[in-house]
């Protein structure tokens, strides 16, 4: 490691010394490309966030890609119906790693106001690992920008090597998640036990 005094002296001369990990994470955190994927009314706020007034481009996340092959981030913006859930999982599987997922709004987190609906998935976290959840119904564009910033912080803290390195750098962890089947009465299986654990209710 370079010592801090020398590092700050160099920085005063305009020379920035950083390790590969920092450079890699910095590059990725500032070019998060979301998937053009709106499910319900939260998508309107997502569109607003990418437009001129809120200007998501300041955070390098304005390049909404229409293909999952080119996207890093899936923003689950809206109610996930049980018929849509397999498609959401499959699209997430088709994204190349490293990939991230933001659950935007009450519906994507838990089913929200439609939680009692027979056809509504009670949270996308039952099938996919959620990186950032945004509460709200719908959340304001500022909230989405905040979520992007939280995600950037998360990316910046990731390690390149070691046992706690992220999923995409670990060959042992598969990049695909099992796609549920739209069955006769419910999705089968009703959740992915590898990523979702039922909340414990203490009375």
């Amino acid at each position, binding site marked *: 490691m370079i010592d801090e005094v020398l590092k700050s002296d160099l920085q005063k001369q305009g020379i920035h010394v950083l390790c590969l990990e920092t450079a890699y994470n910095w590059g990725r955190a500032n070019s998060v490309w979301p998937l053009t994927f709106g499910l319900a009314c939260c998508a309107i706020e997502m569109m607003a966030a990418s437009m001129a007034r809120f200007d998501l481009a300041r955070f390098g996340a304005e390049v909404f890609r229409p*293909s999952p092959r080119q996207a890093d981030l899936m923003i689950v913006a809206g109610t996930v119906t049980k018929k849509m859930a397999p*498609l959401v999982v499959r*699209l997430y599987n088709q994204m190349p790693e490293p990939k991230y997922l933001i659950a935007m709004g009450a519906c994507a987190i838990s089913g929200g106001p439609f939680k009692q609906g027979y056809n509504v998935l009670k949270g996308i976290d039952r099938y996919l690992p959620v990186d950032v959840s945004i509460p709200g119904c719908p959340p304001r564009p500022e909230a989405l920008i905040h979520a992007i910033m939280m995600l950037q912080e998360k990316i910046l803290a990731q390690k*390149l090597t070691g046992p706690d390195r992220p999923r995409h*750098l670990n*060959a042992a962890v598969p990049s*695909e998640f099992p796609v549920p089947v739209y069955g006769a009465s419910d999705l089968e299986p009703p959740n992915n036990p590898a990523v979702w654990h039922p909340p414990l209710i203490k009375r």
Partner: protein
Amino acid sequence: MATNQHPYFVLLLLIVVAVAFAIGPLAAAWAWARFFSPNKPGKDKNSTYECGLESKGDAWIQFRSEYYLYAIIFLVFDVETIFLLPFAVSFTQLSVGAFAAMIVFLLLLVEGLVWAWRKGFLTWK
């Protein structure tokens, strides 16, 4: 830079830099994938379609060869339309010979139509 060098030296330098500029990032990406980022293909990841739905059936479907008749009948009307419009526009200035030629052409096409009609191809099966 020295003045006694070969005049094309700069060009050579430019080529070397250009090739390095093109190959460098690719090599870096390859090396990064090789040493850090493991390759993880999968069924969904390798599938052709990107809409989230699974594709059903085979893309190599076969059309019945009888459909060529409908293509021919379409062509009869298509060609007719293309020639009828200029014919109608310049109708008053046409000579008798040109008029006769056009009528012969139309009759030829109509003959094809009559043939198809009598064969029963105009009835959708």
